């Protein structure tokens, strides 16, 4: 039988006012197993802690119960004290008689009785507590960043600058992401490429960063500290080692294809780099359009002109295996499909374009070198209608959420248009204008100052009449229907998570919400962590956000990764759920209920294996397990049973 010591705190008068601590001490002394009980004014003070330490030594105690405040406040304090007294820290428990008792009751008799019951249940618990040792995991000091947009670039640079080797995997042929496509950024109107490309170059030249472009993460195994990652390097049909990026191949290639980077407003070749500042600046072959692949053996112009014989039609996809200790997911966003907004005529009216297309028109490196021109006839539009919330805030038909950035980028579009076409008229239909950000409201004021007309109301229809675009809408402020003739219509489309990223999310075993945005561990306090320890989130993959927010989140995710990757080994609480393999039938129910992916079914032995580094000790598996094989350490079924019995005994 364990010799148990109980230490009752007055907490000044916080407990002593409502609980008769002297009577309580006498009562507890009589309880079976309790060898020693005493009370003190402030148990957490140094003299209070010394009482615990001395009693452990003098009374040869095997376990300690401190009846005081919530364990979130002082569990560590008393476990440390118990260690100093020579006990294992996990045989020290707190009985919460303040928040759960004295603070919520007035009647001293009842409160004292309740305090006594609380202490007795914890005494029952501590009787079965085992000494435990913290779980230690060795750390592979390398990071993986998935996605080479501004979020991934920032995270990779921050981790690498902390001295940790970082692998940056990008799906496309170049890093840069959406930000590389933008014209100028609100509210300062910095040229997007001008501020981004130095960072891209820094990535490519960084000694600690291994950039793997035109590749995708295929498989992830393991857990925090030790992930094993399989990366598929797609065949580019250009030997990356030989290629010098001279560009003769794509100059000579005879096949022209709509450029994805230019959002279909410009052309690229079948062998191409997406844009001139691409990093890496090595072309790839698009096999869907390349003559050689459509008519095997034909053309080969690129191969013939290449001065270093880098074009290799025989190249195959390649699987690279890497080991990393932490992962940052920065898979970014796409814009909402404009075709779904049938009433706005995208796809049938050529001069109804997307916000991203308008970015390309405004960009100095875009298809019109920054001149605003109509897609249909190349003429300068004299009146542009911008439709905000195109697809956003429409629970019934489209996206329920606000995409956050459209108000600001539309204000920017209107301003840049007025700068390009001085006599041009910008008319913006909106539901609300949301300008929450530093300098954003001021920017919006500047845009209205410069003559943009804001009309509060949704557009019902966009159609063509005699070659003119007619926009039907309402101005709810004047209570009038309005009809506007426009030369061009720009749809401010909402943000959705990058399409086809579900497989990656499944591979990583992280969660996403109903809109497929990645779910953070806590919406307020752990916004850059996923529910899986060691996997962190950055950028618009987690939710709509603008560039400064993305960069801040990426740096946050990086610092979380660095905190793990700069240690030799990481330590976790041992109070997690184990498996009694003799009892486990391998039914797998616990695998489904575990929110942290800490449980895996071993199909050979047909028992559950626990990934100790991932288990957070929430207890879901223990309550779901039909055979009692899943047991929380120091909170096993027997303990809970004894605690319940003890709580009910006196009633």
């Amino acid at each position: 039988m364990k010799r148990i010591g109980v230490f009752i705190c007055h907490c000044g008068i916080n407990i002593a006012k409502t609980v008769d601590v002297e009577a309580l001490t006498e009562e507890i002394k009589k309880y079976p197993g309790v060898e020693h009980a005493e009370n003190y004014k402030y148990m957490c003070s140094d003299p209070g802690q010394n009482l615990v330490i001395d009693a452990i030594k003098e009374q040869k105690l095997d376990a300690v119960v401190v009846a005081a405040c919530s364990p979130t406040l002082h569990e560590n304090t008393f476990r440390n004290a118990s260690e100093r007294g020579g006990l294992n820290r996990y045989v020290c428990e707190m009985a919460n008689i303040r928040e759960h008792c004295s603070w919520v009751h007035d009647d001293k008799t009842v409160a004292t009785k309740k305090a006594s019951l609380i202490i007795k249940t914890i005494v029952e618990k501590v009787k079965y507590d085992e000494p435990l040792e913290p779980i230690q995991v060795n750390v592979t000091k390398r990071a993986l960043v998935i996605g080479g947009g501004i979020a991934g670039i920032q995270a990779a640079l921050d981790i690498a600058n902390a001295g940790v080797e970082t692998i940056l995997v990008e799906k496309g042929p170049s890093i840069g992401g959406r930000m590389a496509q933008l014209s100028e950024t609100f509210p300062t109107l910095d040229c997007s490429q001008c501020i981004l490309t130095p960072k891209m170059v820094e990535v490519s030249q960084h000694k600690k960063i291994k950039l793997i472009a035109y590749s995708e993460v295929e498989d992830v195994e393991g857990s925090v500290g030790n992930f094993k990652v399989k990366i598929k390097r797609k065949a580019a049909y250009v030997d990356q080692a030989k290629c010098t990026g001279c560009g003769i191949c794509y100059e000579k290639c005879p096949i022209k294809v709509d450029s994805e980077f230019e959002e279909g407003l410009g052309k690229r070749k079948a062998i191409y780099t997406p844009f001139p500042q691409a990093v890496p600046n090595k072309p790839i072959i698009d096999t869907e359009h390349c003559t050689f692949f459509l008519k095997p053996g034909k053309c080969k112009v690129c191969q013939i002109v290449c001065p270093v014989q880098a074009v290799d039609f025989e190249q195959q996809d390649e699987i690279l295996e890497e080991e990393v200790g932490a992962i940052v997911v920065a898979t970014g966003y796409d814009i909402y499909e404009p075709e779904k907004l049938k009433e706005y005529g995208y796809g049938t009216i050529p001069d109804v374009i997307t916000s991203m297309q308008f970015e390309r028109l405004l960009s100095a490196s875009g298809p019109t070198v920054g001149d605003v021109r109509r897609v249909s006839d190349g003429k300068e539009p004299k009146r542009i209608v911008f439709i905000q919330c195109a697809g956003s805030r429409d629970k019934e038909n489209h996206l329920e959420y606000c995409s956050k950035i459209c108000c600001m980028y539309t204000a920017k579009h209107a301003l840049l248009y007025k700068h390009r076409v001085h006599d041009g008229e910008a008319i913006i239909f909106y539901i609300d204008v949301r300008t929450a950000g530093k300098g954003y409201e001021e920017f919006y004021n500047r845009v209205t100052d410069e003559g943009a007309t804001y009309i509060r109301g949704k557009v019902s229809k966009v159609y063509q009449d005699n070659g003119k675009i007619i926009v039907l809408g309402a101005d709810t402020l004047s209570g009038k229907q309005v009809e506007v003739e426009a030369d061009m219509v720009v749809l401010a489309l909402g943000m959705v998570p990058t399409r086809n990223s579900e497989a990656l999310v499944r591979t990583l075993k992280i969660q996403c919400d109903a809109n497929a945005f990645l779910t953070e561990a806590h919406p307020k306090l752990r916004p850059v962590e996923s529910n899986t320890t060691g996997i962190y989130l950055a950028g618009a993959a987690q939710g709509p956000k603008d560039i400064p927010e993305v960069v801040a989140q990426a740096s946050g995710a990086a610092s979380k990764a660095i905190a793990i990757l700069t240690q030799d080994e990481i330590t976790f609480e041992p109070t997690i759920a184990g498996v009694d393999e003799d009892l486990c039938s391998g039914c797998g129910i616990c695998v489904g209920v575990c929110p942290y992916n800490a449980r895996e079914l071993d199909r050979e032995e047909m028992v559950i294996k626990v990934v100790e580094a991932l288990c957070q000790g929430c207890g879901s598996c223990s309550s779901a397990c039909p055979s009692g094989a899943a047991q929380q350490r120091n909170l096993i079924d027997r303990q809970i049973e004894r605690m319940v019995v003890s709580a009910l005994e006196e009633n």
Partner: protein
Amino acid sequence: MSKLLIDKDFKRRIEEISDQKLSDCYQCGRCTAGCPFANFMDAPPNQVIRFMQLGLKDDVLDSQGPWFCAACLVCQTRCPRGVDIPRLMEAVRVIHLRAKEGLIDVSEIDKELLLDAPPLALMSAFSKYTY
């Protein structure tokens, strides 16, 4: 359905006469909220300004709001954007007056009325409604 053809000249005229910038108004409605006469107006102050912002000349000139405005300056005092609304209302009245509609021909005024009417009202009418 009203086509939105922003009458830029009309907007400019209102801005010139009143020395106010129409884009300053963000339609919060505080002017209407505190106006002692808003209940009597067919279009309350913020809506008259909205008509002005959209360059809806007829709506502005047809509305009776500006004629109910007593220039008590409550709206101007409270406007968070510093818009002097009474000046905008005055601008509407001035545009009406300068249009010289309903001029008074002194020789045709009924003698009885001339004798009965307060001299101040007559002087005021002459100053506004005669060449």
